[in-house]
């Protein structure tokens, strides 16, 4: 095989065609001189329900690409600090003539390096297999009713609050929600939240799920810092949108989380995920457009909203029972309560529910469970430092131009967001800057109002923090 010529790469993943019953992946770890095999499958049978009678083969390629990225990202440990991981993927597809184009390859590698920090190289070979069952079935008539909007459905609070707001704002339109992943608990939750919401919006909601499953992978250690998750979700969601006759995929994520600025300068690059960052959405949209040969967009209608603002509609309608069905936690536990309450996602969730005056009926380890051994204050302290930074920068002046100058001096990445996305947002650069200033101002105001309540949860569990010298030495 080509192992000799691949010495420069650290990993090579050779995919067999991903058929209905799955496909084999042969993994070569060149630096350790190891080989292993894993099987992966995707159940895309729910794509039978669609408005497009034909299943375009290029969309089947898009799905295979998403599966290959998912598998690679989960199976290969990728260092964010030390040596850059080099990944070579060989994937059989139906249209290698399109996927091997240098413009497509450049966009794909650039997107994945931006989102994972690793260097990805793809080689698309011609698939000789017929394809999965769903793409072979030619429909005589559409098997799903027309929908107006296709959106990602994660089972999280932003997805719920965003959808609820869209449903209330646009009383005539219907939604197809798309979920994926490889975890049964996540599937159960997506279904549960969907079922809880459906009776209030009869005939306007449908759900499509396409699970990805590994098999024979127990011996393979999984990469815990999976930074391509957002890209995989969007690519599969885009396939769903296309099959539903849509050229836009929407996802609902608050602006603070989407932009995900570092709390302190000790955080760099991918310490904070770019999974739904505005520049990621722009890049994925460009990539899909190049693949399908027509313009395709990925939009987040809530880029300028805080999470609390997204929850406002739920609050006004007193839908207190819905948020506890969702999950936000970054480090869910197996035991109950499963949400930790002290990771940044849990803290932002608590902040949003408190600031929007939704009763938080969620059970968290902090404050409802037994205090864990780890430092529960860590993320809260970092988030509060960031709030204090924002305050200092925004209070620098009342004038928007000076505020922007002050904000971007500390966070120059905000300039890139405006420069590269103002057109797709349908705004002028000054308008977009004002919207972002307002977003961070609102976030600061909200924290001012609820900080004692949020910190109170922690103080009730903290007896005495250990002195810093006990936990400050770390060798990386």
């Amino acid at each position, binding site marked *: 095989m080509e192992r000799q010529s691949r010495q420069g790469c650290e990993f090579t993943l050779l995919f067999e065609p991903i058929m209905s019953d799955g496909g084999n992946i042969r993994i070569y770890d060149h630096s350790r001189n190891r080989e292993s095999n894993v099987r992966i499958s995707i159940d895309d049978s729910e794509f039978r329900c669609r408005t497009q009678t034909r299943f375009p083969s290029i969309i089947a390629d898009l799905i295979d690409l998403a599966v290959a990225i998912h598998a690679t990202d989960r199976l290969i440990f990728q*260092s*964010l*600090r*030390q040596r*850059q991981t080099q990944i070579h993927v060989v994937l059989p597809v139906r249209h290698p003539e399109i996927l091997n184009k240098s413009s497509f390859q450049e966009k794909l590698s*650039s997107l994945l*390096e*931006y989102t994972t*920090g*690793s260097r990805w190289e793809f080689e698309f070979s011609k698939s000789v297999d017929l394809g999965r069952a769903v793409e072979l079935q030619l429909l005589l008539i559409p098997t799903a009713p027309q929908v107006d909007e296709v959106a990602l459905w994660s089972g999280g609070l932003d997805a719920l609050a965003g959808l609820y707001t869209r449903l209330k704002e646009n009383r005539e339109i219907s939604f197809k929600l798309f979920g994926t992943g490889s975890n049964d608990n996540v599937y159960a939750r997506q279904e549960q939240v969907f079922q809880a919401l459906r009776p209030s919006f009869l005939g306007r909601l449908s759900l499509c799920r396409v699970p990805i499953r590994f098999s024979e992978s127990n011996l393979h250690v999984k990469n815990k*810092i*999976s*930074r391509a*998750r*957002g890209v995989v979700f969007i690519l599969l969601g885009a396939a769903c949108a296309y099959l539903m006759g849509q050229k836009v995929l929407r996802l609902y994520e608050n602006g*603070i989380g*989407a932009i*995900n600025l570092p*709390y*302190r*300068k*000790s*955080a*760099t*690059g*991918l*310490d*904070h*995920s770019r*999974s*739904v960052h505005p520049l990621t959405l722009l890049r994925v949209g460009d990539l899909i457009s190049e693949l399908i040969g027509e313009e395709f967009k990925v939009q987040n209608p809530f880029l300028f909203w805080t999470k609390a603002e997204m929850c406002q509609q739920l609050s006004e309608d007193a839908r207190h029972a819905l948020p506890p069905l969702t999950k936000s936690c*970054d*480090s869910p536990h197996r035991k109950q309560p499963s949400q930790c309450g002290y*990771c*940044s*996602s849990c803290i*932002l969730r608590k902040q949003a529910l408190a600031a929007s005056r939704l009763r938080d009926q969620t059970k968290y380890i902090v404050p409802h469970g037994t205090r864990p051994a780890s*430092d529960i204050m*860590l*993320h809260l*302290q*970092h988030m509060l*430092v960031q709030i204090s930074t924002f305050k200092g920068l925004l209070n620098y002046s009342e004038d928007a131009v000076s505020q922007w*100058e002050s904000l*971007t*001096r500390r966070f*120059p990445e905000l*300039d*890139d967001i405006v*420069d*590269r996305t103002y057109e797709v947002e349908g705004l002028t650069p000054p308008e977009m800057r004002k919207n972002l200033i307002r977003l961070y101002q609102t976030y600061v105001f909200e924290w001012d109002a609820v900080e004692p309540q949020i910190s109170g949860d922690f103080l009730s569990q903290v007896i005495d*923090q250990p*002195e*810093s*010298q006990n*936990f*400050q*030495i*770390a*060798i990386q």
Partner: protein
Amino acid sequence: MPDGDIVHSRLKRLYQKPYKWLCEGIATSDECARAVLEKLKQDIKAKGDLSIVLAQALAASVTQIISNLEEVRESDFAKLSVEFDNLVRQADGSPYVKELILRAGKGYLNDLRNGREVDITHTSEAIWRRYAHEVYEAEFKERIPLTPKHHAGITQEILEKRIEAIQPSIDFGIQKFAQNAIRNQSVARLSMPRRSSQEAIDLNEDLLAG
């Protein structure tokens, strides 16, 4: 936040000594600053010459796109920022060093854009200087644990004041590192600034004179 954040709250072993000195308050500000600069020098050396190669590549692209700052347009900055992304992406090396130099480059662009930086003749040195500041902040200043009680029982507020007090010396030391790094095209021989507290001995001085 989406997919979990990695939070760094512990100082590396390398920076323990200057941290303890700052907490103990026995050494002078100058001595503490020197202790930090010594460790920063080691850290920068360990991170290698990629930062210099990239600072020069970024500087070259600035010169190529901006010949006269008075005629520069907003779109030029946007174009340069994309160019910076591409140059850094194409380089081989640690994603961490690449990220720090990119942050330095973007900071430099922001300064140019807002008129805080007006000199484009020493761009590589200016970008590399910012890189060294990024290393200092990422590895030391903003990595000090957020805890109400530090080593020797001092508070966060006192520690912050002491860190603020060493800032001019750190700036001066980094300035010197930047000159060395660009002149030698290497981080291998960064020299420490002279001790400000030590005056040269005047051999002709009359020690008995009143």
